[in-house]
């Protein structure tokens, strides 16, 4: 069993839709949760960073962490064609002391 599982998609939605991206994990020690966006032929870029459980909002993006269920989500509101990319979740038990473990990524396409 992989430490971090992510539905690879692909996921295709119309412009303006609400998108939900999810990851599950098995390591209960994970406390730090990140979402990265990766455009084709580019390196990943950090979108959101959350510590422990709860919600965090940044513009059209909301990250949710449910540690009791070992489940994290990224919601994108009013999705735009420019949001088309691969979204990677990543997590760590102790920043600086333990490496980030990435999910395999979900490929998202927003259709105009």
């Amino acid at each position, binding site marked *: 069993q992989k430490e971090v599982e992510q539905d690879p998609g692909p996921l295709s939605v119309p412009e303006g839709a609400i998108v939900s991206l999810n990851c599950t994990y098995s390591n209960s020690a994970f406390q730090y949760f990140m979402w990265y966006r990766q455009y084709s032929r580019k*390196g990943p*870029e*950090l979108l959101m960073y959350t510590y422990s459980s709860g919600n965090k909002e940044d513009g059209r993006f909301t990250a949710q962490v449910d540690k009791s269920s070992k489940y994290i989500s990224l919601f994108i509101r009013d999705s735009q064609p420019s949001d088309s990319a691969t979204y990677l979740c*990543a997590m760590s038990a102790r920043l600086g*002391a333990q*490496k*980030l473990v*990435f999910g*395999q*990524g979900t490929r998202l396409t927003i259709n105009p």
Partner: protein
Amino acid sequence: EAGVAQSPRYKIIEKRQSVAFWCNPISGHATLYWYQQILGQGPKLLIQFQNNGVVDDSQLPKDRFSAERLKGVDSTLKIQPAKLEDSAVYLCASSQTRIRAYEQYFGPGTRLTVT
């Protein structure tokens, strides 16, 4: 602020040949990471440097991969000899400190094809 630079961007070699990748991190970033990203998968950490010292190389195939970060700035990753399964994108990333590992800045990567 300049981003993380990597070269070359693309490389095609035959199996059993050697190859080297170069990375220049963001100025002032003490921590440098090399990742391997196989098509359809997330990045996997190969090695992490803090300044010019190795912090984590537990997933580096040391019989064929080597890396160094001289003077705590630029870094090179070498594969010798290459195998078909080494075909992947090799990403370099840097962060200000180890604690700020959540805020890693990635380079564009080097796409390696081993034939």
